[in-house]
């Protein structure tokens, strides 16, 4: 039963150790077996310790990689937000304002001669409003401001002359052209910026995917680490039990020999 070659490699080699004989030869054999088993457990412990150290290093690397991936994902998210905002400003706000200006300029441009007359009517209305306001006891400063506005609009209207109407139409057309061009350019810029924002969003998703992969590897390494620690623990326990068992066998054999000697 005391077969060292078969027992050393087993998970718990001391299991078949039993006191068979009690002469000096078998005692030394038992000690030799104990030495073999302890040696085996020691190599097992050393291997487990190496595994634990390697797993710790691997875990550290994975944690660093995970942190880097998350940091890069955050940076990409920031860029995505910034370019998304710019895209929204150019593609939506600027384009809408330019579109509104172009529409207003189109109205003025197509209004032609009617535009100065409209302005003149507004000027007269403001002038009359200032007078009525003064009579009704409105603050003189406000009345003065209304009068000034009236005078300014009156100047702009140019008294409704044909030359002034032509000038306004030309300016309105230019404004319309400029506004339309700005609108188109803003839309194109908005689209380009949106593409850049989506590029950063894709990068953010990629980094998040990488982080998922690192988490999975981290979990697997943790399992390996747990296994290595468990093996180390088992090796230590087994070594202790082997020593205890063999000591008990030796003590028992000794007791038997002492008893026999006493009887003889």
């Amino acid at each position, binding site marked *: 039963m005391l077969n060292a070659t078969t027992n050393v490699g087993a998970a718990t080699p001391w299991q078949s150790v039993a006191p068979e004989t009690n002469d000096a030869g078998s005692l030394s054999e038992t000690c030799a077996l104990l030495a073999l088993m302890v040696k085996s457990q020691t190599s097992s412990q050393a291997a487990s310790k190496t595994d634990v150290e390697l797993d710790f290093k691997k875990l550290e690397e994975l944690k660093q990689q995970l942190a880097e991936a998350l940091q890069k994902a955050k940076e990409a998210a920031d860029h995505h937000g910034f370019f998304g905002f710019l895209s929204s400003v150019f593609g939506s706000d600027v384009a809408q304002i330019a579109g509104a200006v172009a529409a207003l300029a189109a109205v003025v441009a197509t209004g032609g001669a009617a535009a100065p007359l409209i302005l003149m009517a507004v000027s007269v209305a403001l002038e009359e409003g200032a007078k009525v306001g003064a009579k009704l006891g409105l603050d003189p400063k406000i009345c003065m401001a209304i009068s000034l506005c009236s005078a300014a609009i009156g100047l702009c209207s140019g008294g409704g002359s044909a030359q002034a109407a032509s000038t306004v139409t030309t300016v309105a057309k230019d404004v319309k052209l400029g506004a339309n061009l700005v609108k188109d350019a803003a839309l194109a810029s908005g689209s380009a910026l949106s593409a850049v924002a989506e590029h950063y969003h894709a990068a953010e998703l*990629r980094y998040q995917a990488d982080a998922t992969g690192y988490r999975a590897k981290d979990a697997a390494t943790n399992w390996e680490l747990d296994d290595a620690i468990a093996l180390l623990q088992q090796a230590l326990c087994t070594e202790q039990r082997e020593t205890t068992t063999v000591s008990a066998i030796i003590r028992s054999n000794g007791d038997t020999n002492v008893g026999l000697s006493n009887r003889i």
Partner: protein
Amino acid sequence: MNSAISTTSVSSFATELAELVIQNETTQSDADRATRDAARAAYLEDAQHQVDALHAAADAMETGAFISAAFSIAGSACSFSATVEKFDVDGCASKTAQLENSSKLCGELAPIAKTVTGDTPQKHLEADAKRFETLAERAKWQASDASSEIDKAYQLGAKLLDIVQSLNQAQDSATNAVIGRI
């Protein structure tokens, strides 16, 4: 006489039984270890597939965004040219109309292209990623179950060894007592 006492059938039977049980436990543990290792390998593989699918989904999204932006920019360029052409005194009305039509077409194609080349593949790939995530989670549970079985087997083996050790000690004591009586 010593030999006869030391090979008492009780100890021998117990030892042999323990050997058999431990052999069985070892076989079971080996099977559990194989299951656990396979489950862990499957977990890592599924997690890698999930990562690949998420990468592909991000690529699809980016591609869709680029194609859509290309159509939008082309539409804006056509509109720009049409505006310039319209305000040009020597401008051709038919060319202006053609440019305006092109601009409108590009504007309509942009969201369609985004849906076809970006959003739809992205949704499919995200669904794949979710499926792989589920598979990985299942493999994780299997690995965990196998690890529990291995622990149980180890604890059973340790208990049996304790019993055999106690039996041996009892037998030794009995032997010594018998020797004392002789």
